[in-house]
């Protein structure tokens, strides 16, 4: 095999692994949007809080890693519920754009508060997972784990939504927000549970990302925008669409970055997004 193709294949495979984690990021945001009809602009900042939680619990307080992970997920889940209760609920009846903007305010707040409390230094867990070698290709172990966990989390989520009573209620309310209260479902409770679930998914993403990236207060900006775009590309609230869109985006970034520079991969992905928006404003899986 030509050596060129090996590297290209490596880029494609890395893109696939990146797609897994992007799909997980998109899942939480889509869940919240599908049910509550609000985009959490501060979603990536919630992940940042989760990453700091893991770092402090594990590296500063020396908790075992699994306990730090579990606690971080719980913390971000509580954060999601708090975000809904304190910030989203008061503006639920306001103009939709206000709901978008209010979470943008939370983005500023969380980012600045993290700077204030944690400082601007880059931190990392100090855990370096090995690179796996397949023939001439190298794949990151951390990415492989992230891919596997992301996939498992997504399957667990879909089983939960399909099989449990609460999941059924969540799906029902996302289909018809007006009728469900008449059927005896308490929307406030469902909204709160959904927000906590969305937060928990952000927490899982935080645990996976903390294995690969350094933590700093502005890290949210490096994957926040891309998460929104994936969700919009897949059709906001459409979980399957978001899943597919994540893998498309990841390929643009990985393969585009392989041929050009990594930023050009992002530029291509974003331009692709804008082009698709004009062609299919409801997202790739959206109907008419």
């Amino acid at each position: 095999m030509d050596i060129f193709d090996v590297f290209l294949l490596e880029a494609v495979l890395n893109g696939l692994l990146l797609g897994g984690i992007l799909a997980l990021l998109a899942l939480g945001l889509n869940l919240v949007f599908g049910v509550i009809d609000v985009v959490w602009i501060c979603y990536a900042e919630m992940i940042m809080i989760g990453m700091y939680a893991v770092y402090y619990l594990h590296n500063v307080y020396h908790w075992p890693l699994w306990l730090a992970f579990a606690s971080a997920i719980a913390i971000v889940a509580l954060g999601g519920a708090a975000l809904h209760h304190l910030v989203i609920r008061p503006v639920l009846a306001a103009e939709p754009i206000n709901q978008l903007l209010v979470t943008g305010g939370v983005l500023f707040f969380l980012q600045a508060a993290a700077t204030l409390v944690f400082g601007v230094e880059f931190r990392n867990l100090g855990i370096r997972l090995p690179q796996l070698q397949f023939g001439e290709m190298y794949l990151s172990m951390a990415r492989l784990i992230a891919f596997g966990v992301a996939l498992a989390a997504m399957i667990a989520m879909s089983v939960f939504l399909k099989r449990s009573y609460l999941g059924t209620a969540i799906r029902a309310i996302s289909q018809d927000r007006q009728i469900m209260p008449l059927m005896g479902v308490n929307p406030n409770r469902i909204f709160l549970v959904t927000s906590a679930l969305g937060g928990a998914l952000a927490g899982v993403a935080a645990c996976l990302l903390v294995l690969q990236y350094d933590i700093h207060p502005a890290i949210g900006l490096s994957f926040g925008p891309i998460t929104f775009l994936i969700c919009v590309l897949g059709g906001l609230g459409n979980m399957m669409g978001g899943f597919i869109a994540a893998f498309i985006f990841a390929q643009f970034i990985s393969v585009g970055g392989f041929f050009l520079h990594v930023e050009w991969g992002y530029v291509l992905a974003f331009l692709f997004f804008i082009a698709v928006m004009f062609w299919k404003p409801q997202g790739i899986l959206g109907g008419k």
Partner: protein
Amino acid sequence: MKYAALALLAAAPLLGMGNYPLHLLILCLLWACVYTSWSVMGRLGMVSFGHGAFMGIGAYVVVMGWNHYGLSPWIGTPIALALAAAVAFLIGYPCFRFKIVGHYFALVTLALSEVTRLIIVALRDQTGGSLGVTPKTALADVSYSLNALQFSSKLVWFYVILAFWLGGLWIWKKVDESMGRLALEAISQEEDAAASIGINVTKLKLGVTILSALMTCMGGVLYAQYQLYVNPDTVSGIGISLQMVFGVIAGGMFVRLGPTVGAAFTLLLAEGLRLWFGNQYHGLDLTVYGLMLVLFIIYMPKGILGAASGALEKRRMVRAGA
């Protein structure tokens, strides 16, 4: 009254103002310019998260032209404006044609501002990447250069930016007085109804968007020439785009001086907190700012000036009724 206030503002630097307060005043007017530009379209229901793109184009096209091709900003500025208008058209036309509104419009424009930032970073050999770039100085042995649009005197900048700020307010007024504005208000309320009575929705929206983009681009040019330093994160990308939106919200986007009040408020808050607490609490100003934004949007969605004039109006009504 209005003119007296304006005369006072124009005379302020001559009354022996220090260099630092003057710098703050200039920055305040500059951001007021940019925020006003954003509101020209934002208040009509087109909430853009992508105005960083236009500001970035203004700042970088002019600086790059000067640094690499020796192009005077007098030539660079029209090029930047043309480019900003073209980008606004390219993004606006399909958006309005296919009725991409609300969340979707905000997120599409967000992608645009990120594309601009990433292109600036990716062209790091020319633009200096995320480290930013300074325009080559023309002030080595002179105190000003008209050709390079560089002035060492802050006083010159004060009057230049004051003029642009007044120009922005004048454009806002002209838009208000034109027939188009009534139509645009109708569009922002009920797009389909507006279309059904023969309003050309796409054309009007596009016009306002291009106008707003041109004004923002000009703001970018002024910013680069005044600060003599540009950085992709301070003139483009999601951060600055959100800053514009929130500055406007804090002040109030439906009143003409709202964006200006927003700019003054944001700047004074940041400087005030810094003077108060000193520099050791890095991020404190933005923490308070973010918290206030959230409270504003929940409890005072019309902004400071909007709420104040609303309260005044109510009082007047009560008095008239009694």
